[in-house]
């Protein structure tokens, strides 16, 4: 064997040593808690929200998201027309332990490799109902814990809704300020505003999807386009 052949063989044998070691997969609870806690630095992002009606074309809107290290988030829904008004909401972070307990009460959670979203490597969390039906999938940034993508599925397994960060600056380049205060009152899902009352049912809508609340206090009943965890959170805050 010539010296050259030996060198080639040694190089080939050493190639696996150069490979990066596989990152250990985190536990489902720890990862979910990290996602619920949010990143420890401020960030600016552009999010696309897509809704897939059972029949007809998908619809989408864009949201400029600003997040502070404290967990306060400002979401500004961008209008289609340049001079039209944008719609802003501000909310504070929910206690991560409480949110985790609620999610674990509704879903069984598993972790898998999530691929890349907005140039960030992610872990994928699958949230399944006790029946085994997949209800949500979450893609969480491996480094910061930021929720990069969330998909919600119908009972038949079809995709109902997708929220995805399509542009991200994390950490944010400049200082971030949120001048508005969070809205008072019970919690509402992102983008839903009060749309009226009819026959004892109060209705909230985001312009495309809606849900209704009937009754009051602990006897409140929720129905509409909501996943089980959102409905549970609504009932928690309504019951107070």
């Amino acid at each position, binding site marked *: 064997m010539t010296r*050259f052949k030996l060198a080639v063989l040694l190089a080939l044998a050493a190639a696996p040593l150069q490979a990066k070691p596989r990152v250990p997969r985190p536990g489902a609870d720890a990862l979910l808690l990290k996602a619920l806690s949010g990143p420890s630095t401020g960030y600016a992002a552009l999010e696309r929200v897509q809704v897939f009606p059972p029949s007809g074309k*998908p619809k989408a809107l864009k949201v*400029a998201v600003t997040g502070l290290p404290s967990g306060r988030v400002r979401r500004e829904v961008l209008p289609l027309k340049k001079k*039209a*008004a944008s719609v802003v909401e501000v909310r504070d972070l929910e206690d991560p332990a409480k949110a985790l307990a609620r999610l674990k009460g509704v879903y069984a959670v598993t972790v898998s490799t999530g691929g890349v979203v907005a140039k960030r490597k992610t872990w994928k969390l699958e949230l399944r109902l006790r029946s085994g039906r997949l209800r949500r999938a979450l893609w969480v940034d491996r480094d910061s814990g930021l929720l990069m993508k969330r998909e919600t599925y119908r009972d038949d397994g079809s995709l109902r809704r997708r929220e995805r960060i399509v542009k991200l600056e994390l950490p944010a380049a400049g200082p971030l300020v949120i001048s508005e205060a969070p*809205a008072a009152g019970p919690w509402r899902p992102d983008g839903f505003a009060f749309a009226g009352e009819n026959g004892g049912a109060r209705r909230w*809508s985001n*312009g495309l999807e809606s849900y209704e609340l009937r009754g009051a206090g602990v006897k409140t009943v929720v129905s509409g386009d909501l996943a089980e965890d959102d409905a549970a959170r609504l009932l928690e805050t309504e019951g107070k």
Partner: protein
Amino acid sequence: MKEDNEARLAKAAMKSLLVPAPESLKANLKRMARNRKPAPSVWDALREALSGGAWMHGAGAAFAAAAVAVVIVRAVPSREAAPSVAERPVLRLEAAAPQALADMWADDSGEDNDEI
């Protein structure tokens, strides 16, 4: 007898036409056969290609520079500007009319990809 003479004459004529090869040509052919190298092995050819002439050194340097540039570009965090929010009227969600929210939605292809 006459036929024998004709054959002899034809043979003599053929012999006179044949020109013997010069000694120098023979020697050259023998020398070339001696000096002919055996076909190079694949490894030798590869080694020769890797340690090629000056132009290959240049090509190698250019390739290495391109590879280093790619590594640097990928390592430096993206300087893409944060999604800028231009000055525009802002409405609080609590005060938004249902029609204003409905007007925010546009038809979509349903694709799952990043912003280009």
